């Protein structure tokens, strides 16, 4: 009897506890998880589907993700077909009407920014191209700003009781963010024109923002693993048009970057790419801090 009473009290507590009444957000990638936390504070409970060490193109619709999608009020993803291999399954298998495409609970960050590298030729002979443009939009701070404004609106729309709270947090975030941009642009000014080789075309927005010059990719075509013949071509090209560093993201296989680094005699740099990619990249601010620090360290 006493046991049943405790159980009843426990269930009531669970039902009444505010932590369970908050806005449930499923973020496809760590950067959007971090942004949702910045804007949502303790009114949002955020689950991040992937880590910085995972390739966001190649995630499986794991049972745990379907379970998380089932309970989500809002799914925040990059969009532009980045998650095309797994997100549609989370939508169709989770039985959650809120997160279907076109519903307020489905948010694609790439819809709110100007996308780079929209392919002129949409054909698989070009590798795993994204017809809508490059989906890795989060490494331009101006994109983060635009997405933050849109996401805050969306959160307020879904959880209208806390609209004021989200708006206030967003204004505070944007103010800090704009100050940080000014600092990053000052610190990063010397990176303008720095030639680099990237692993995958996932740093294009960063390069476009800071003016880094991408002189080659380790992947022969987007999404295809590096091959020996492509790497040796690249190496001979670097002889004519040298780069200052081989830059890869934390989730990329290090082998190809190390191979090229050793032969071309230029440093290999690992960027966090997203929150959690390095020990220092703990949130969006430190993600940019660390990214700049790592690039500045090799640009001497």
């Amino acid at each position, binding site marked *: 009897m006493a046991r049943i009473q405790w159980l009843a009290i426990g269930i009531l507590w669970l039902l009444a506890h505010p932590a369970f009444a908050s806005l449930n957000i499923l973020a496809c990638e760590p950067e959007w998880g971090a942004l949702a936390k910045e804007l949502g504070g303790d009114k949002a409970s955020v689950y991040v589907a992937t880590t910085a060490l995972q390739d966001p193109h190649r995630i*499986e619709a*794991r049972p745990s993700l379907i*379970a998380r999608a089932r309970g989500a009020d809002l799914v925040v993803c990059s969009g532009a077909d980045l998650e095309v*291999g797994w997100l549609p399954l989370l939508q169709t*298998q989770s039985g*959650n009407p809120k997160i279907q495409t076109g519903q307020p609970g489905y948010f694609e960050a790439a819809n709110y*920014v100007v996308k780079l590298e929209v392919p002129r030729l949409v054909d698989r002979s070009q590798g*795993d191209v994204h017809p809508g*443009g490059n989906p890795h939009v989060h490494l331009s701070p101006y994109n983060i700003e635009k997405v933050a404004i849109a996401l805050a609106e969306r959160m307020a729309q879904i959880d209208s009781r806390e609209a004021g709270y989200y708006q206030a947090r967003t204004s505070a975030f944007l103010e800090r963010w704009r100050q940080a941009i000014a600092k990053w642009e000052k610190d990063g000014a010397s990176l303008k024109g720095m030639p680099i080789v990237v692993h995958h075309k996932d740093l294009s927005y960063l390069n476009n923002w800071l003016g880094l010059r991408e002189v080659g990719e380790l992947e022969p075509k987007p999404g295809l693993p590096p091959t020996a013949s492509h790497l040796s071509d690249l190496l001979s090209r670097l002889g004519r048009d040298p780069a200052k560093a081989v830059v890869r993201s934390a989730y990329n296989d290090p082998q190809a970057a190390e191979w090229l680094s050793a032969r071309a005699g230029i440093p290999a740099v690992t960027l966090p790419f997203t929150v959690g990619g390095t020990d220092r990249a703990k949130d969006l601010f430190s993600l940019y801090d660390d990214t700049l620090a790592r690039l500045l360290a090799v640009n001497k």
Partner: protein
Amino acid sequence: MFKGKLIAAAVALAFAGAAPAQDGDLAKMREEMKQLKEDYEQRMRALEKRLNEAEAKAGKAEQSAAKAEATSAGASGRSGENAFNPAISLILQGTYANESQNPNNYQITGFVPSNGEVAPPNRGFSLSETELSIAGNIDPYFRGTAVVALTSDNEAEVEEAYFQTLALPRGLILKGGRFFSDIGYLNPIHQHAWDFQDAPLAYKAFLGGQLKQDGVQLRWVAPTPFFLELGTEFSSGDPFPGSDRNANGIGSSAVFGHLGGDIGPSYAWRAGLSYLRNSPDNRTYDDVDATGGETTNSFSGKTKMWIADAVLKWAPQGNASRTNFKLQGEYFRFKQDGNLTYDDSAGSNVFGSVTGPFNTDQTGWYGQGVWQFMPRWRVGYRYDKLSYGTVNNGIVNDGLGPTSADFPVLANYSPTRNTVMFDWSPSEFSRIRLQYAVDKSQQGLTDNQFFVQYIYSLGAHGAHRF
């Protein structure tokens, strides 16, 4: 810019016009106006600066946009009727096979033939099923999917054609039409996404290769932080282990439950239990009697099947691009209870038509592991075993005439198979596979099968199930 100056001028004029003629007031007014003017000028300078900055930024953005061929958000080249085209994809598959036994005589000894497409591919070059799939959202409430298989003998076969709800609340999903049943692990997965060229023996013996049915399915995903899913299916029950009954109502029902989750970032798993019930009516198969004359056997009664399945996937830190491993296994138990009618009237006509009680209790399982040891390359091994268990054939046991020699397919035998495969995937959309199997499906015969298989995927990027 000009507008700002005009307004300032107008304001100044207005103030000047309204100014009273008293000197002190005038001086005060002048002072105020001067301040106002300075204030406006300051603001205008600020505005101008911001405008210049914005223009510069826009120019920069324009340049980079032109350089990188950017377009505005959400812009799409599709328009008009075309814009609503569903996702279309096409799978091209083919095989080169070298087999030591004739695939046309393929049988699984000890088990009632399913009459499904279970035989190995034709010897030499052959085309496997070409799959055309079309899928898209119908409206905010439904999604539709159709998969048509074009077979090598120039027939079109509807593999799947179903609707699925998108808007039911509380984790409910209703599906209707023709679809692969969600029982087991491999059953709902399309053949091109399997890790081997062919189905496990248990699928061949107990489900005719793969169970697809016409019916409805209701599924519920529990609101738990781990994955729990329960479902039930009702269908006409035409395919094996059922039969075409020409009857109202439900010929087959199934229930299934799946449980799954992650163990740290590197492991993900799913386990399931399924139960399938059928009521076949005159489900027939052909055999030969002791003298080689043709016979027809027909079963009517009830069948029950239990399947336990589990899959465990590993990838370092959950990043499967470089290396990953997948371990998978399923266990089947299949019981039949009813009557069997033996008929040799079309052949040697010794006994004519004889009916006796018939019940079976048989099991089967397979286990397999597939390892991607470097990008693009995978190896895999699979072991298959079927256990004869008990087969009580009343016709033979009760001495109604035909003896066990008149039921060669049902001879006491437990098949096994060992399979290795090696595949190379230049990209996500292409795969070339070598597979070698020692198949002991038939009593007294060993079939050494060597396959070279290609699988190409065109069009929309289909998401694959876990």
